[in-house]
């Protein structure tokens, strides 16, 4: 049960902000140092740095060291799309002893440097905004715990062509039950109609 109380929202948070260069993917367009400096002035931000690759082993390691050294309790990674690396960084903060949901990402690559390549100043301005928004959000995040649910160890395979057959056999040979559904009266699909097949030049069936 989580009900937020306005009064204790932003007190005593210790946020770490990491602005990723992503090699040159972000840094070519966005002034990452400037973004880190702008964000450092925000309330609750304990550490703000720019780093070459946040997702790399050394990158993650340095963030984890900061968490321990500066007693950080929430992390903002300003790098790529959370659709790509949110699981990576959630794992990272978890291994540093924080709840994985106390992480927020700002998308400076897909939503900024890659789409405003010819406007570095405006892109940097946007990057500052996106990162500040992430800080605003991370301050309000609360720890969450996943729920464990039962799972059915069976797979439905839709289509009995070469792909469906292979997937069904691999699953079944590993001890999983499979329901294989095929629209036609026989499995085989397009493959069964072929004569010889490249590159081996043998028959398909």
């Amino acid at each position, binding site marked *: 049960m989580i009900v937020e109380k306005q009064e204790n929202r932003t007190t005593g948070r210790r946020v770490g902000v990491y602005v990723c260069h992503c090699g040159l993917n972000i840094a070519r367009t966005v002034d990452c140092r400037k973004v880190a400096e702008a964000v450092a002035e925000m309330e609750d931000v304990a550490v703000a740095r720019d780093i070459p690759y946040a997702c790399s082993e050394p990158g993650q390691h340095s963030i984890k060291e900061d968490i321990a050294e500066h007693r950080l309790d929430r992390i903002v990674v300003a790098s790529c799309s959370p659709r790509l690396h949110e699981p990576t960084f959630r794992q990272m903060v978890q291994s540093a002893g924080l709840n994985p949901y106390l992480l927020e990402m700002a998308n400076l690559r897909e939503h*900024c440097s890659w789409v405003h*390549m010819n406007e570095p100043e405006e892109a940097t301005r946007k990057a500052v905004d996106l990162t500040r928004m992430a800080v605003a959000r991370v301050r309000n995040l609360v720890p969450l715990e996943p729920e464990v649910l039962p*799972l059915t160890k069976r797979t439905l395979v839709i289509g009995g062509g070469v*792909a469906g057959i292979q997937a069904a056999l691999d699953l*079944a040979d590993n001890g999983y039950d499979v329901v294989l559904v095929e629209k036609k009266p026989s499995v085989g699909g397009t493959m069964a109609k072929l004569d010889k097949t490249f*590159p081996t030049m043998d028959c398909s069936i």
Partner: protein
Amino acid sequence: MTDVGRHPRIKLLTLSEVVDVKGYVGNFDVKILKKSRYVSENECTACGECAKVCPVVRPDEFNFGLSSRKAIYSPFPQAVPSAYVINVNECLGHNPVVCAKCVEVCDKGCINFHMSDEEITERVGTIVVATGMEPYDPTELDEYGYTRFENVLTSLEFERLVNAGGPTRGRLVRPTDRRTPGSIGFIQCVGSRSARKGASYCSNVCCMNTVKSTLVLKEHYPDMDVKVFYIDIRAFGKGFEDLYTRSRRLGVKYIRGLPGTVEERADAGLRVAVENSATNSIEFHDLDMLVLAVGVKPSAATQRLQEMLGLQLTPDGFFLEAHPKLQPVDAATRGIFYAGCAEGPKDIKDSVTQASAAAARAIRLMHRGEILTEPITSEVIAEHCRACGKCAEVCPYNAITVDTKKKTPAVVNTAACAGCGTCAAECPFGAITMNHFTDVQILDQIDTLLEEDPQDKILAFACNWCSYAGADYAGVSRLQYPPNVRLIRTMCSGRVDESFIRHGFARRAPIILVSGCHIGDCHYIHANHWTEKRVARFRKKMEKLGIRPERLQLEWISAAEGTRFSSIMHRLEELRKEVSLEEIEETVRILENGAGVRRDSPGSE
């Protein structure tokens, strides 16, 4: 193929289609319609006596009509299951006066006209989508004369003609005179790589399939004159270049250029006119037979399945993977995986590779026997709830129960809640908290983004699955657009509360965009219907209050529509320029007089 039929762990349902899927990762409830075969699958020994006496003769689909079959038939010799099947639409019926000849000759009594279609329900934890492909139908490419000239075949028809198990037992003959052709031509990219007709993508397999066919021909008919008309030969895979050079070495002529016209000659041969771009000359080639290397199209079942499973398609019509490079096997919906041509044109090797990967990904998810769910679910604040029932009404998953008569507070079943946040957005009393996307979390983002120079900025809400992913796709494609937009991600557009929009305008946002998946593609079944209604409702309010409703925009952007995302951003920037500072200040005044600029504590609407 036979392994699939006899594996103790595989339940094979042929003549079957998935008609409904409910539930979520770990526990999908699947409804399957199994059409009746009218022949017992277990009893039939495929002796073939029934087909001998069947009086109905029909074109054989397996051989693309190049041979015939009966109304009771085996699809092809190696079919699995091997049992015969009756096409009831063709069968004369079981009335003995009419026919029933097959019933009489079947010693084992396998034929049963009283079999009926079955509806089967299965519970599964994961789903592999392997719905395959369909060959391109070259009818619309009239210049190649596929429908006009009998000796113009598709590559798949050709496959059947050179197949030892095919209608001619592997002897290549021309359809018109059943004589082996002395010369043969292949036209590449039929239905592929053309913005005009067919599809614009490369179908991946046709170059190598043609190279293979030329090798088969040269093996059986060394003197045959074989020509290939092409744009460029894509022999990129392992061992492919070897096959291609072997084909050239054996005397196959590769002519760079696609024919402009094909005409039939008096002897039913074909005259092909082509601009050879290697020699820069117009050439005419007389050939006995022509094969169109047809491209790969998504299977017809794709769209229905996409709607049923809440998946996404690329503009080409194939299934869209969660990430084109790093998650090429996963669907964006957890627990669903792709294998083979369903995800894009591929050859056998790649299909097998992806299928094994899909199996491994499914096992990775299932092996623990339990599943961790995202705690991003909604919660009811009991003391604020007035049991009006609105949340239960809007929940796409029926995850909320509320007794409106007894006025007991609503209860969320967190196992069934998928976390769209529609209930939180629709609750009139602020009595629902959406974990990880709470009001405060989002309002603070809005405040921060509009802190400086709000008149220059566009506030955009984007749903995680489609429109945010569409923006990612624009990034991956390096599509440039004006840098004024700032996205706020929610899981679903259904989460976007009226109060967020009002708050945005009160904080001087010139333009606000709400964006989500296309209607019908929502990741939360139909939650975006509520988004649509809510935005329409708010625009009406704006009109009444004297705020231009155009300042609130609603757009549907799919994960594959990077181009669309970018063009919408350009359009929004044009709209933004039309909003003057005076207009923004006027809006602030209007909203200050009106109700609730910011809901600072739950329940104070």
